[in-house]
């Protein structure tokens, strides 16, 4: 009873605004711009040191495997895709939350997105950069990576295979990266102008150049909003298309465990799930380290928890559907694949994937868990782990045991592969830390629109001047 009363009282006082009450628009400008204007704190340097070291390990590993060849990986004829494609799909998936938050939630008029969209979009771009590395390295001769683009060439009739899902990836991810980058940069322009107006010396020049001479006139704003709406509309199908195409890398094959018609929507929802896991992880750290508690409030975290439990449950339904249809199909290969997935050599990975992706998020139904920052943080980390394992189990587990028992094998990743994975995390966090240091992490002009009404008038004067 006591718990219920407590839970109710927590809910009785819903925040009237999305940011802490009493926040003025001048506070927003000051809070968001000041980290860019002072020397970074110790926490930032420690973070950069750790991330940079991981990145250096990755650079060393990548340099080594480019020099020696991808024989340095644990792949063989049976298991042709291992850590590389697992990491690729993992990182592409992470990016999805950013696009969903910035484009889909914009179209759905979900105002709570304003505090987190900027960093979620940045996360998208960095995640896609990390993702893109793996296929390029896997090519073995990354200096010829431009051969994936179909252009008239002097190599005779050598054209890319338009029927290959791998080529669709090139287009899907290329488009995704371009649109995400444009959307993010256009979203930054008014805020860069604010930073410019507060800066002096070379920084003023730099930010002035970056803000493309933004004046904030009514005409600029009107055109700006049209541009944003157009980009949001363009980005929305990308949320669905990118991971649908990524899933086609597997689903267009005849490998049991890879070929399932439900793969495209199942991968999309899994991507959104893992992306929100990462957004929660980053936002919970960022609000603490950067002191953004009044902008990234309990309400944002609760909304993200809702998305997490919703998408996690759909992922669980997809797992159950796969199992049911494997039995229902009556196909011996399908049945073997899923029995092997659960009880075979990678059964422990399947346990992690189901535990972290389906069971753990269900804890978020409990308001006590949802309202505990520590619990949400731990759950968000476990979601990241679970979704990485999902891809690993699907990719490696299905390949290890194919149709012919004589060709079965066991894949063991080498230290080089672990080092590359570590390096990708290093790259991601290095980029993210640099972003926190040099660009406004919260979209000031959008947060100002959701301040309490009495400050609205001030906002329109200051924010648009």
């Amino acid at each position, binding site marked *: 009873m006591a718990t219920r009363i407590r839970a*109710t009282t927590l*809910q009785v006082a819903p925040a009237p605004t999305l940011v802490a009450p009493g926040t003025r628009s001048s506070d927003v400008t000051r809070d968001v711009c000041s980290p860019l204007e002072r020397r970074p704190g110790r926490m930032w340097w420690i973070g950069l040191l750790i991330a940079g070291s991981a990145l250096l390990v990755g650079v060393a590993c990548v340099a080594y495997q480019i020099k020696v060849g991808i024989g340095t990986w644990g792949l063989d004829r049976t298991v042709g895709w291992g850590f590389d494609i697992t990491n690729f799909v993992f990182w592409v998936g992470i990016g999805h939350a950013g696009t969903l938050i910035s484009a889909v939630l914009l179209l759905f008029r979900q105002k709570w997105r304003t505090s987190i969209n900027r960093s979620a979009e940045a996360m998208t771009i960095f995640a896609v950069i990390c993702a893109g590395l793996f296929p390029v390295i896997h090519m073995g001769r990354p200096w010829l990576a431009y051969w994936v683009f179909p252009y008239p060439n002097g190599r005779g009739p050598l054209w890319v295979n338009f029927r290959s899902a791998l080529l669709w990836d090139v287009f899907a991810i290329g488009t995704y990266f371009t649109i995400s980058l444009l959307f993010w940069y256009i979203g930054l322009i008014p805020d860069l102008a604010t930073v410019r107006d507060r800066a002096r010396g070379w920084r003023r020049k730099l930010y002035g150049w970056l803000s493309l001479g933004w004046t904030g006139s009514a005409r600029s704003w009107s055109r700006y909003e049209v541009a944003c709406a157009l980009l949001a509309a363009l980005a929305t199908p990308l949320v669905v298309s990118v991971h649908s195409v990524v899933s*086609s890398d597997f*689903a267009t094959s*005849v490998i049991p465990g890879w*070929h399932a018609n439900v793969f495209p929507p199942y991968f999309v929802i899994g991507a959104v799930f893992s992306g929100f896991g990462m957004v929660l992880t980053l936002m919970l750290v960022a609000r603490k380290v950067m002191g953004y508690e009044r902008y990234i409030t309990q309400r944002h975290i609760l909304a993200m928890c*809702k998305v997490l439990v919703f998408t996690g449950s759909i992922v669980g339904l997809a797992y159950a559907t796969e199992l049911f249809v494997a039995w229902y199909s009556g196909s011996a290969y399908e049945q073997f694949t899923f029995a092997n997935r659960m009880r075979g050599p990678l059964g422990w990975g399947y346990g992690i994937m189901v535990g972290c992706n389906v069971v753990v998020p269900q804890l978020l139904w409990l308001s006590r868990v949802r309202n505990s920052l520590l619990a949400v943080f731990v759950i968000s980390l476990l979601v990241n782990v679970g979704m990485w394992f999902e891809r690993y189990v699907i990719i490696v587990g299905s390949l290890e045991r194919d149709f012919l028992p004589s060709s079965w094998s066991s894949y063991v990743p080498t230290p080089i592969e672990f080092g590359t994975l570590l390096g990708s995390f290093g790259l991601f966090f290095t980029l993210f830390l640099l972003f926190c240091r040099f660009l406004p992490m919260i979209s000031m002009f959008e947060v100002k629109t959701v301040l309490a009404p009495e400050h609205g008038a001030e906002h329109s004067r200051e924010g648009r001047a």
Partner: protein
Amino acid sequence: MTFPWQAPQRLLSFLRGIALAGAALFVTGLYYDPEHVWIGFLVGFTLFTGLAVTGPFFLSLLALSGARWPGPMRRIPEAMVSALPLGLPLGIVLMSGLRALYDWSDAAAVANDELLAHKSAYLNPVGFGVRMAVYFALWTWLGHRLVAALRAQDSDPSVPASRRSIRAAAAFLSVFAITFSLASVDWLQSLEPHWFSTIYALVVLSTVSLAGLSVCTIVGLAFARKPGCEGLASADRVEDLGRLFIGLSLFWAYIGFCQYMLIWYTNMPEETSWYVTRSRGEWPIVARACTVLCWLVPFLALMPKRLRRDPKIVARVAVAVLGGAILHLYYLVAPAHSRVGAGGGLLEVCLPLAALAGFLWMLLRALAKGPREPVAGH
């Protein structure tokens, strides 16, 4: 603002007449053309129950996302729930047609077919009936609970009341996701019992959602033409409906494309059979008609903002989409019986239309009896 949700008596009598005529046609048809009758009945049954269950499905999505844009229009999906209790009696009628529709219900066929024997643990008449009873019991109970919670929230906008409706919505949605997936296998996928597809539940869900959205839109916009009800269809609300049509029709096309592309690409005989059947006779024309009505028409017609805000245009699109969705249900059912070509009989057209009329009759009656007070937040 209160809305007189009272449909004209003549319309109600007309709809009831059609529904009764459909019932009479069904009974007489059983004697001279049972195969067509059962196909028509299954399409009508899926349409009726699909429409009834999209009511609480939409309501739970609206409640969980905190949507307030439907305003008084929320009464329509609320009224749709009232058709759910009729699902089980209709299902019991369907049980007597199992032999005509489903190969797996024939013990002799199962004994001679290894695959059917394997599936008989799931696909058997007793299991089919029990599961159907469970689906309808759960949908009816949780659906009515959700409506009650939402209506209680209208007069008592406190936090505990809103928590209750959110809980009811979450409970319905969780149960619906699982039961609807299984129901789509039971009722439709098992018509071709050798075939399987993991995405099938979404194919059916996208189709019945389109039908449900069309019915909500048509009913809502028709009431908005009555004096005193103009506020029902503000331009903003019409635009939101239009956007939902674009979104749902894209979802429908996306799911259909995923299934087709992956089966076409891998070209495995155990999966292609479904499309091979549907590549013969008139079926490709039906497939194209579905694509035009369910996807192309709403996508192109509602893309310009001016048209999306026009209630007349949106209502016409809704009629086209409803026709497309019914046609698509027919496309899912009828080709399974390869002897029957498309447009095989008047019965297949009349019975689903009678089911639709019966559903509309129940919906309008429930609307008239339901609350007229404004919904919470309006």
